[in-house]
């Protein structure tokens, strides 16, 4: 079940005026908790945005403010706490759009946009190599684009091109095969979902990517799409609505689909004697309202002792990897991940499970740095372990 708090967004200028500067957002903001300066608080950024955009002082759009706007993981924790009900995540996206429209975006954002336009993915690899990871499957051809398949697996750029994340699509493909799911992928015709462009302010450019992916899904006649990346999922679910108009497409995150398979008795899960905790990815939890599905999966595995992290569900801490923060301030992102690693240590988990390949990369680096005896797994990897 999706549990999203929907908030009205009356436009950036109006919402900036509505902000009461109460500071409830401060304690929740992972960036402020690391940076510590008032300019890094959501209320501080809104106050400055008010000056610049609501009060027409665009000359005050300084490099420092642009930097603060880029130092945000778009985790949405501030929106959760806002006493005046501002959808601050939408606010940050709109401000990044305004900054890009003025040509003042960080250089890293421009480089990311140019790379996406050239390669159609966030890596330096050719998009034709999208299914390179699938070579490790018994039957790589199973992923070859095929019309009329029951399920289309939208792999996402991180899973497709980053070797550290390749175990995730491999696990999903193997689970689907074992469960007898009739599935396919878009192969080299899968383009980036567009989220990196939306999150850096290039919304118009993102539309081209969204339209392309929707067209390919339509051409293959796919009516159930499963995405393993929460950002891809949220773009499909929310930002692709217009392009999908008139086409019947069920959009699921892998956690939702795996729960379905478990409930249908299509997955046989064996005992795993581990203490497992779950890290809620921001784009799956706060943005998309999916909290229960991953927990149901973990709890359905015999032998697992499930423990919650101190901050979980709506109050979950970000891993630091969201909002394209790594491209502008990788050190800050790593410091945020350390905060989460501290929470993982505090509950004594032997396995931390998540459902986002970016979160898993951030947490893996953080627990490794802290020399913690903890394995970081995607929920699909945990399921596959239980099936073996």
């Amino acid at each position: 079940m999706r549990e999203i708090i929907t908030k009205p967004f009356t436009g950036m200028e109006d919402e900036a005026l509505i902000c009461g500067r109460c500071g409830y957002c401060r304690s929740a903001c992972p960036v402020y908790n690391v940076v510590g300066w008032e300019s890094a608080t959501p209320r501080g950024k809104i106050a400055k945005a008010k000056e610049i955009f609501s009060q027409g002082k665009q000359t005050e759009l300084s490099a420092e403010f642009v930097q603060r706007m880029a130092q945000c993981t778009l985790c949405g924790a501030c929106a959760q706490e806002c006493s005046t009900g501002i959808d601050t995540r939408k606010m940050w996206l709109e401000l990044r759009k305004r900054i890009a429209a003025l040509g003042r975006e960080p250089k890293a954002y421009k480089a990311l946009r140019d790379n996406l336009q050239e390669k159609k993915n966030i890596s330096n690899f050719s998009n034709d190599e999208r299914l390179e990871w699938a070579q490790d499957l018994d039957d790589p051809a199973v992923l070859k684009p095929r019309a009329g398949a029951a399920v289309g697996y939208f792999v996402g750029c991180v899973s497709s091109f980053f070797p550290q994340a390749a175990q995730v699509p491999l696990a999903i493909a193997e689970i689907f095969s074992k469960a007898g799911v009739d599935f396919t992928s878009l192969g080299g015709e899968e383009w980036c979902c567009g989220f990196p462009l939306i999150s850096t302010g290039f919304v118009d450019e993102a539309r081209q990517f969204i339209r392309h992916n929707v067209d390919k899904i339509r051409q293959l006649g796919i009516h159930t799409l499963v995405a393993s990346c929460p950002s891809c999922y949220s773009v499909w679910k929310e930002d692709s609505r217009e392009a999908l108009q008139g086409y019947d497409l069920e959009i699921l995150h892998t956690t939702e689909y795996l729960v379905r398979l478990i409930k249908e008795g299509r997955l046989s899960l064996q005992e795993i004697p581990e203490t497992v905790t779950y890290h809620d990815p921001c784009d799956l939890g706060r943005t998309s309202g999916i909290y229960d599905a991953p927990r149901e999966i973990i709890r359905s595995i015999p032998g697992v002792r499930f423990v919650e992290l101190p901050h979980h569900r709506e109050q979950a801490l970000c891993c630091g990897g969201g909002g394209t923060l790594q491209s502008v301030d990788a050190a800050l992102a790593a410091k945020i991940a350390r905060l989460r690693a501290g929470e993982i240590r505090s509950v004594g988990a032997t396995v931390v499970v998540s459902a986002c390949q970016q979160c898993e990369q951030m947490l893996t680096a953080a627990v490794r740095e802290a020399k913690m005896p903890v394995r970081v797994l995607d929920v699909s990897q945990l399921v596959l372990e239980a099936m073996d």
Partner: protein
Amino acid sequence: MEKLKQQFGVRATDSLFECGFYSRDMAPVPSLLVDPLFNTRPDIVVRPVDAVETAGILKTAFADNIPITPRAGASTVYFNSVPVKGGIVIDLNLIAGIEDIDEAAMTVTVRAGTTWLELEKYLNPLGFALKSFPSSAPAASIGGWFSMMGYGIGSIKYGSLLSQVQSIEVILPTGECRWLTNDTKPPLAWFAASEGTLGIITRLTLEIRRLSSMKHFLLAFTDVGEMRRALESIINAPVVPYNLHFADKRYALAMQSLGFSPSDTASSCTLGIDYEGSRAELDIVQNMIIRLFGDDRTIRLFPEEEARREWTGKFNALRLKRGGPSVLGGEIWLPVKTLPGYLADIKKKADCYGLDLISYGHVVTRERAAVMTLFYTNETRIGSYILDLAMVKKIHDVGYRHGGWPYGVGLWNTPYLGRIFTLPYLNELRLRKQMLDGRGIMNPGKLYRAPFFLNPVSFAVGMGTLAAVRRITGRSGRR
């Protein structure tokens, strides 16, 4: 300043960009009014991590006569934590965390920059709870609320924060670090409501209670007189409520139009009553409420689910701002018995000036309530907005006529000092200031006397003129 920069490294800044963020609190006062009169931008902001570092900053400031402004949550509206003479802002947010719980003594020792909500979240899983906390608990710091008047949720049952604090660690303006109790010289009571003008509090030991069950009630009245009678019945009943909050019809209507309240509270005054205690006590309370109000057909008793929702939203009165975009208003420390008269006069004032005045508040002692009366405006329409500022004084004037005065002083309420304190008490406060901060470096410009531009006579003339212009022209920020 250079010495501080070198000493604190990345935890000190004199960047114009950064310092600008420390030149405001929650009050939306136009730069046009503030900048010509006050230097609200600090010269440097420093973030110490403990009492020792704080003491070091104060020693430097004391030696060079540099103004110091302490700041943590900055969740007030009177510029209490905004400098008016530049200088050093000490950002206390790193002095946070819980140090010790003494279960035998039922106390907790906590660092001053911790927020009230963080402390409550820490205590609850251990089976403890705060005796009282501010309605801005997610942002307000422990030290900050102690430095204000310290009345809020839970105060009607457990008293002011001052009555719950057993000791404080404070850095005096000279940089001397002291632990103060009620028996020391100076006593800790001097620092309660001193608004950071006598020193910087870095640690507090305060009383806690056992976590207990709660029961919530929400009543609606068609008439404010009935609400007052109900309030008195509740206040004088044998079981004291933990929280007692009320709202006028305009509040209910505004919340309902914004989708935050049940539709059937519109055109009603509401009274939320929250009890905590043992199961047996809560059973008594349930019977008492039914006995008091169950048979009265003019009073609506809402299902407990609605009452619980009111309790859950206790930190979110600012949701009202969605109907704005801006709000102005005053918070009045009002006798409970004059509440109906106050609300009636507020309505008259609203009609007279074409204002939509919304009132709500908490009963925080058996005799007093903290009442917020506010109205919508639009700060982007500068001329009209300045005329609207005059209405804030009109609200305070109504409060004064009914035995009330502003809750908190800071900078903006200094014109009302004569209403807030008796002259002997004000002189006593000034004497304390002279004794502890003879050089006047601690949070200067606040609390003790109005600056020239805010002296009561010229302030009254200025605001009166603006109010007259507003009345004649019919201009307001909202329109």
